[in-house]
């Protein structure tokens, strides 16, 4: 399977054809976007088999909902990534209702990911570099930045972030809220 990168306009065309039930277009859309989307799911659910289930659910969902995709309002990758992230977060949260701790969740897959790829803060910084908002991000206090990255890329809940950074949950909630407000302003400066 190739991991071709298609321009946003091409993806929009593919999605328009998918909305009409075009299976060839759907396959091309999958080939072009599945690796990126699988990467996002894998970061959140941490296990390949569960990430593949998330990917399957997301693409079946995209197939059904393609007719409702509004090209004028959203980029195709934004639309698809939102579907994948939502599904991955649902999967993570429902599995976590059994109250397994972060440590229990981090199996061998997670360890492999941690070893070979940039950590969550690294990903946030890389994203900021790409978007040219690095200065704005660096102005956010370090602990807030770390909390933001842990939540966004690994799907950690308030209590898990608190356990991870060794701070009271109340402080983490405040950091996240303030951090998110600042991040919002950084991202809005792009528009």
């Amino acid at each position, binding site marked *: 399977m190739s991991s071709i990168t298609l321009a946003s306009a091409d993806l929009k065309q593919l999605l328009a054809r998918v909305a009409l039930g075009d299976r060839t277009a759907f396959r091309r859309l999958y080939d072009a976007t*599945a*690796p990126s989307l699988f990467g996002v799911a894998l970061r959140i659910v941490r296990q390949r088999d569960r990430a593949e289930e998330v990917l399957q*659910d997301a*693409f*079946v969902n995209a197939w059904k909902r393609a007719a409702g995709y509004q090209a004028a309002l959203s980029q195709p990758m934004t639309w698809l990534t939102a579907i994948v992230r939502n599904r991955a977060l649902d999967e993570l949260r429902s599995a976590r209702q059994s109250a397994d701790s972060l440590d229990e969740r981090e199996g061998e897959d997670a360890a492999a990911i941690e070893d070979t790829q940039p950590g969550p803060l690294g990903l946030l910084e*890389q994203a900021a570099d790409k978007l040219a908002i690095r200065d704005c991000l660096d102005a956010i206090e370090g602990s807030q930045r770390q909390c933001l990255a842990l939540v*966004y*890329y690994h799907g950690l809940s308030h209590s898990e972030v608190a356990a991870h950074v060794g701070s009271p949950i109340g402080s983490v909630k405040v950091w996240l809220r303030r951090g998110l407000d600042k991040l919002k302003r950084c991202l809005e400066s792009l528009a």
Partner: protein
Amino acid sequence: MNYDRPELLDRLAAEYVFGTMNARVRSRFQAIQRGLPAARQAVEDWEQRLTPLAHSVPPAQPSAAAWAAIERRIDGRESRQAAPASAWLAWLRPFLGVAFGVVATLGLVRLYPTAVVPVDDIVQERGTLPASYVGLLTDAANNPVVLASSTRHGRIMSIKMLRKVEAPAGKVLQLWALPKEGAAFPLGVVPSEGKGSFTMPDTSEKLLSSVPRLAVSIEDAPARAGAMPAPYVLTGNCVKLW
């Protein structure tokens, strides 16, 4: 909570998209999004803002089985299922299918004999209620208003109105299913008082197995599949009674 406040919706949408909500709050906010366009819009705004951050995540190649599973599912050949573990299992599948079919048919008659025996008799004999989906819808003041129930493998939805609902003349009370994912879909029309029933397009198991919430809106006419619901006047949980 007053969801008309834009700043509250913005805060909730941020937490939803960012991912800090727990399972219970997520599911509640998903139900709110289905009924409240302003909530859906707030979520879309945050998705637009935050998604570029996800693009720094390194790609990873899913297995070839993932695409095969997606194709099977959009063809309706099976529901969510992991890829076959090996080629011999794939080869064996048709035979397993037949064997499972025979066992399942026998099992279903034993487990769900409601098709041939009146439900009351089964309840009397077993002392338990049959496997069913049950919804209890409440109004804004949390008063129970609609009791909706349907046996697991049946198509009839029985409705008992626990309070009278005054629908404006010429309007109908439309019952909707609010699935965990995707848009709300219409189930049927409920009476304003007393008891009633309607036949659904498929079995409860097919329609309701991933539907945590039900809602009622006031519509000009019975809603068709794909229609957008008017604001909900009653909502409630839909649970499995087994």
